[in-house]
């Protein structure tokens, strides 16, 4: 018979091992920049960090205020400005007679609404208050 055994042509266990070795040896090394990126993502995903971030948003408002105050000349000046603004609001709602005399004399009107030229149908007289 001329039957031949072709089994010797097949890959053996040691051949497969060589292929596995080759795959291991040619495996790319992970990019260090990618590792850095993963570290950043890990920090962002930290459960505690998320809580701190929400607390930080409140702190940011105060830090913004603390940066604005010096631009207006410090705490004392800022308090003064706030008080003047508050007095302005009070005067706006309940003007003293002196202010009304001034508007009547110069603008010929007794109401601030009329002076502003809005909603003329509803007259508000300061005497009603």
């Amino acid at each position, binding site marked *: 018979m001329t039957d031949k055994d072709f089994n010797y*042509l*097949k*890959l*053996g266990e*040691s*051949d*497969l*091992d*060589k*292929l*596995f070795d*080759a*795959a*291991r*040896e*040619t*495996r*790319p*090394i*992970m*990019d260090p920049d*990618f*590792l850095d990126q*993963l*570290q950043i*993502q*890990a*920090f962002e*995903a*930290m*459960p*505690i*960090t998320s809580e*701190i971030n929400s607390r930080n948003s409140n702190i940011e408002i105060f830090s913004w205020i603390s940066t604005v105050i010096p631009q207006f000349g410090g705490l004392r000046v800022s308090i003064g400005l706030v008080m003047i603004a508050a007095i302005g609001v009070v005067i706006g709602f309940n003007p003293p007679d002196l202010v009304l005399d001034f508007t009547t004399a110069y603008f010929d009107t007794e109401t601030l609404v009329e002076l502003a030229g809005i909603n003329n149908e509803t007259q508000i007289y300061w005497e009603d208050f």
Partner: protein
Amino acid sequence: MSFDVSQNKDNAELLALFAKGNRLSTISLTSRLAPIIFSQAFYMLNNSADAEDVTQDALLQLWKIAPKWDPNRAQITTWLYRVTSNLCIDRFRKSKRLSSEEMPEVIDKTPDVDQKMQLMARSKALYAGLKILPDRQRQAIVLRHLEELSNPDISEIMEISIEAVESLIARGKRSLVTTLTPQKKALGLNND
């Protein structure tokens, strides 16, 4: 003198510290686990970009589960191998991009160009052979022969019996032999 005590801690301890907001533990854990995931993903997908995506997704899943992690449940690496395998299989099914498109850079330990070329050719052939294996056979072969894990570890990762692992590996290797035998000579395996 190093103050990084996290080096002496196991992965579960580091994960618990991560959940408490410890940054050093996060660095240690990422440095330890990311290369393992990347390596497994690359073996299964043969594509660096896809392997990076899988690494990122697997770690994000770990960070998400960290506060609820039960150290008695399983080893973190076992859980990660399982998650990575599933992510790779999903990605592979979607993209079918597992191919010999990417010729990996050879790590600089080969003495000459011919040997490098041969390593790359063998690697390319193996990935082509792995590509046509069923998902579970490919997963078992990668874990056993490329990640070099033990059969009991693989059975835990794949959640099947050790006998089933052995069967998957044996069938996978038979398929590889059938697929790659015609290239035996070209791959420089004819002298064995």
